[in-house]
């Protein structure tokens, strides 16, 4: 005969089993149309490119070799693939610069919202949320129209007599950075706001009581307290920025490629799927490193699920 403890144990096991059934559809969909295919990418990076795209089922490390190196077509010697390295460097540089710039602009903005009275705070928050949920392509397109040679900025500067030739801003690295700062700013402001909202201003007051200057209060009290928000915001901006596709294709033109454009090229005209796959894994590795930094920076502080 089953004891009470056994019956309870069975009930618990049934409960856990039911919970797996309930979560099965979500897990299966994500496995089939998101996570699983990532493993196939890893697999493909070790195959041989086919003549018209796709792959030939033959093991090869050439895809990985050509991520960093290029083979001379005459004597087969290897040298650094400077074109690729330039693109990696541009992607990293622009993603980091965009992260810093969104922090510089986002920090005061989030602080401003967090220090508004309860009633108006929601309205400011709403104004940040709207761009966040509007189409990224449309927002990038909006930036394009402002910084074009015939756009608002150049027209205004010419009419004011400051310049007589339009400044070429579109199709430069600068344009990509401006575009990324513009589209990813809400991703920085929202987590910053979430941690500033909880800020205990009695600590700030104590700082002033002890003769701290405004700058000292900001640096020694506010900044350390909202650090989780700073880290979260930076990660949220850096990850999409390093893999950005729309912004560099619209604002960078054909010359100023980033990681994503290089990957796309391998699946299009490049017809080198293994190289494209290896490049994709490389981007993912960079993102994983960023996430690890994030986890290391937040563990220890009181961060919980939800």
């Amino acid at each position, binding site marked *: 005969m089953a004891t009470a403890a056994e019956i309870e144990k069975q009930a618990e096991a049934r409960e*856990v089993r039911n*919970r*797996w*059934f309930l*979560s099965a559809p*979500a*897990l299966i*969909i*994500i*496995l*089939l*149309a*998101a996570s699983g*295919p990532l493993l*196939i*990418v890893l697999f*493909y990076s070790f195959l041989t490119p086919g003549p018209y795209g796709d792959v030939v089922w033959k093991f090869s490390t050439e895809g990985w070799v050509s991520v960093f190196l290029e083979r001379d077509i005459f004597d087969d010697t290897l040298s650094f693939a400077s074109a690729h390295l330039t693109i990696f460097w541009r992607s990293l540089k622009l993603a980091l610069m965009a992260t810093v710039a969104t922090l510089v602009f986002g920090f*005061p903005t989030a*602080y*401003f*919202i967090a*220090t508004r009275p309860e009633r108006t705070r929601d309205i400011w928050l709403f*104004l940040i*949320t*709207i*761009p966040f*949920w*509007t*189409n990224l*392509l*449309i*927002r990038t*397109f*909006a*930036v*394009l*129209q*402002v910084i*074009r040679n*015939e*756009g608002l900025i150049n*027209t205004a500067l010419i009419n004011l007599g400051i310049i007589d030739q339009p400044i070429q801003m579109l199709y430069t690295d600068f344009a990509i950075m401006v575009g990324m700062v*513009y589209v990813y*700013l809400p991703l920085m402001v929202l987590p910053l706001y979430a941690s500033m909202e909880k800020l205990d201003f009695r600590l700030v*007051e104590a700082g*002033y009581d002890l003769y701290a200057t*405004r700058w000292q209060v*900001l640096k020694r009290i506010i900044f350390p307290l909202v650090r989780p928000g700073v880290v979260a915001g930076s990660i949220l901006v850096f990850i999409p920025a390093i*893999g950005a*596709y*729309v912004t560099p294709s*619209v604002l960078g033109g054909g010359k100023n490629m980033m*990681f*994503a454009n290089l990957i796309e090229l391998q*699946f299009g005209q490049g017809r080198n799927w293994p190289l*494209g*796959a290896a490049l*994709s894994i490389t981007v993912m590795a960079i*993102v994983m490193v960023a*996430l690890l930094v994030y986890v290391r920076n937040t563990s220890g502080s009181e961060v919980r699920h939800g």
Partner: protein
Amino acid sequence: MAKRFSIKQQTGFTTIAFACFFLLYLPIAVLVIYAFNESSSVSDWGGFSLRWFAAAWSNQQVVDASWRSLKIASSAAIIATIAATMAALATTRTRAYRGLTFKYAFINQPLMVPEIVTGVALLIFFAQIKISSGYTGLGYLIAAHTAFCIPFAYLPIRARLENMDLTLERAAADLYATPWKAFRRVTLPLLWPGIIAGLMLAFVISLDDVVITEFVKSGGQDTLPTYMLGQIRRGITPEVNAISTVFLLLSVVIVTLFFFMSRKRD
């Protein structure tokens, strides 16, 4: 005049904040204004006109792409919301069990991977399936969209479940309601706002997607965003502004609904 010392004030912060809000809306405003331009240029103002809206409306490609976008977004959002609701019920209000952390991580996984990588992965995977099954319909796009919509739908539903009062369900059980009845008559009505919020988020996210769609679509399966990307690359007419304006309006309406619904909850 002596200004009262405010401890919340930081030098220059308000100015930067106002500049941010201004710069955030300036490009959007320019885009919307030029949608109403009479001339075919996006830099010279030729007077007010609705001709570009009419042009977009009678452009069969735009109409087709819009329908396709709506079809994909509504299918993906509905499937994702149902799957996310079930997953949320399975991962909240429980003691920790083996696999719970794994489930969290797995459901949120699409958020951690750059879109370009998911796009490439699906391109490779679906290319194989297309060859072996011969099916080239919208199913692939719907499946891809559903997968990346699930974490977005899951968020508000889980938040709602976690804040829910458990005593009501217990009361229902005490009054001999079967688990299904208690769920349908007590839990579900309480959960409803979270489900609607999740559905709207998923819908907007699907509607906005460019990158994954660009890689997964077969020939002639342009959605509105991928159609627009093609147009922008080719050179621009105010027609794209007109389409963007309508698109923006739709997003703003959905976000506003979402915002007021989540505010009422608190």
